[in-house]
């Protein structure tokens, strides 16, 4: 059983399109995240979300929006895709208590052409 799963794994799309990446965790964690990893391999946090609070990295363009139908899912929707959005997007989750680590999904490779 995959703990944190995200789909699609690979996505190639044209500029201007709208796309979504889905993420599900079966670990019973209460916090989920989206990270963007660029070509320089820097993992930058985009959003974190639990049932009570959405924390948005203020550097993230508002074309990116997280949507959480329930605590096991956090989807990422991107409007009007741009070339610079090409990156690997990692979903992750953790339990909001001391001594817990963060678990990653396998990543979604997005290429905007």
């Amino acid at each position, binding site marked *: 059983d995959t703990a944190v799963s995200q789909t699609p794994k690979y996505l190639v799309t044209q500029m201007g399109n709208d796309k979504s990446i889905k993420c599900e965790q079966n670990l019973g964690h209460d916090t989920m995240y989206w990270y963007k990893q660029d070509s320089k391999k820097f*993992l930058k946090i985009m959003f974190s979300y639990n049932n009570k609070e959405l924390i948005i990295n203020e550097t993230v363009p508002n074309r990116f929006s997280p949507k959480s139908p329930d605590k096991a899912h956090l989807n990422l929707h991107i409007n009007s895709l741009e070339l610079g959005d090409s990156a690997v997007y990692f979903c992750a989750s953790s339990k909001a208590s001391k001594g817990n680590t*963060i678990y990653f999904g396998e990543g979604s490779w997005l290429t905007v052409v």
Partner: protein
Amino acid sequence: EDKVVQSPLSLVVHEGDTVTLNCSYEVTNFRSLLWYKQEKKAPTFLFMLTSSGIEKKSGRLSSILDKKELFSILNITATQTGDSAIYLCAQGNTGNQFYFGTGTSLTVIP
């Protein structure tokens, strides 16, 4: 936004060498310091450190945290080609946020 700084950015060593990777972090709302290894896919967990001066060890890898000087090191002894990867350090805070450094790219050549 450079909460976590890793050095060196990249490193090339020969098999059998010992390497030390560095990570410095901010003290604000500190809860834990984590190390991950990333090969071609998702980062995989190596260590979590919360207490100063207590070494964590797993095979040839070990790590220690200095909460006074706000840094951690990851040591790899007798390196092998399979150790080639990006090593990521992350600071976890009391708000359950995790901030990653830029990573150290390690290449081990035969």
